[in-house]
């Protein structure tokens, strides 16, 4: 039995002259919650489509549960992919989707699904075509949770879901994950909301991985220092700077790397203010347009 859920190396997908995914290497360990993060068009969906056998890679090797996923029923049976733009047969109701789900997902929990339908107040008898965007997302979320697939992908699972529904999703996900550990990959823009759910973060930008670390390692790994420009320059002298803003004689600089108590004291002595950088802010710094060029240098980080 293999150790890793997913092993990708040199994974590449091209569309004509455009390279959507550019030779990425990563592994996904079983029974963890991953965040696959990045801007729109970064290549997140393409990666998930390759991992679930929906797209054929152009280059590189890909093993999901020890085997190439595409057209291998024994692998695909263990996967569940909740796609942002999932299409449904024309006449389907949500109830039809849930009726078909156990034929494809052998761990399907009917009682759990029923509870989720009530939680999300989903009109299950209504045709999918007539559902609102949020209700459509709820259908996907319910399938993704109740299928209990060993490897579940949620691609932007909650477009149109309100804050209450999103928190129901987080709560049910954590609850059920605690009881039935499995590998979950979450791809989303709402990074601040999910940051604490993640055990590992893979950040992708322009088809490449620019950060692949444990979430705990990422947290507090960057700080923003604000104060008089001269003092800032003295403080950040030899630190990796990933963001910089100036206003008159004042500067606000984001630095990569953890600050120890001595650093904090020195900052205080220089009259500088320290502020934590959230995962979302860090990602904005790492993938922002203004720093697109300099972030290349951060890849090794």
């Amino acid at each position, binding site marked *: 039995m293999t150790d890793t859920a997913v092993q990708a190396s040199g994974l590449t997908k091209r569309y004509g002259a455009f390279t959507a995914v550019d030779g990425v290497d990563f592994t996904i360990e079983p029974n963890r*919650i991953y965040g696959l993060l990045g801007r729109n068009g970064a290549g997140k969906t393409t990666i998930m489509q390759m991992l679930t056998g929906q797209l054929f890679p152009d280059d590189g090797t890909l093993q999901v549960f020890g085997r190439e996923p595409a057209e291998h029923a024994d692998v695909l049976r263990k996967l569940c992919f909740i796609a942002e733009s999932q299409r449904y047969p024309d006449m389907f109701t949500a109830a039809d989707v849930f009726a078909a789900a156990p034929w494809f997902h052998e761990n399907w929990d009917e009682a759990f699904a029923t509870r989720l339908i009530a939680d999300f107040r989903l009109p299950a008898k209504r045709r999918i075509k007539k559902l609102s965007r949020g209700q459509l997302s709820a259908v996907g979320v319910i399938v993704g949770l109740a299928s209990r697939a060993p490897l579940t992908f949620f691609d932007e699972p909650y477009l149109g879901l309100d804050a209450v529904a999103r928190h129901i999703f987080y709560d049910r996900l*954590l609850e059920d994950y605690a009881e039935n550990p499995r590998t979950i990959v979450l791809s989303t823009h709402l990074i601040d909301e999910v940051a*604490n759910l993640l055990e590992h973060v893979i950040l992708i930008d322009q088809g490449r991985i620019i950060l692949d670390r444990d979430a705990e390692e990422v*947290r*507090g790994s960057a700080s923003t220092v604000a104060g008089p420009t001269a003092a800032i320059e003295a403080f950040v002298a030899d630190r990796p700077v990933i963001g910089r803003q100036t206003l008159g004689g004042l500067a606000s600089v984001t630095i990569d790397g953890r600050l120890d108590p001595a650093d904090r004291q020195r900052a205080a002595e220089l*009259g500088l203010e320290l*502020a934590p950088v*959230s995962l979302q802010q860090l990602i904005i710094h790492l993938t922002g347009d203004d720093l697109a060029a300099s972030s290349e240098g951060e890849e090794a980080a």
Partner: protein
Amino acid sequence: MDDSRPIFIQIAEQVENDIIDGALAENAQIPSINEFAAFHRINPATALKGVNRLVDTGIVVKRRGIGMFVMEGARARLMEQRRAEFAAQYVRPLILEARKLGIDVESLAELIRSERTEP
């Protein structure tokens, strides 16, 4: 949960605070990993890491199959530890800031005394 420090450390500190202020008595059972995870909406692995930190420092003991409990004498040890950290964490920044504002140590002491007597 704040963003500046790892969450597992914050989880551990929260339990320590509860022990210090008596919310968690010695020998009392602390919440399970999954309860921590659900309450704070955090990954269970993170909660586990926080609790393991408490186990490693001898604040909490795991009893297999039953749960996790506050160790005998944990409160006294935590108090002692926190007192040691107090000067560095609170007093030194206070003096630094006071110096910046031209308040000497004598005036500072006077301020503290008057602050304490106010309602």
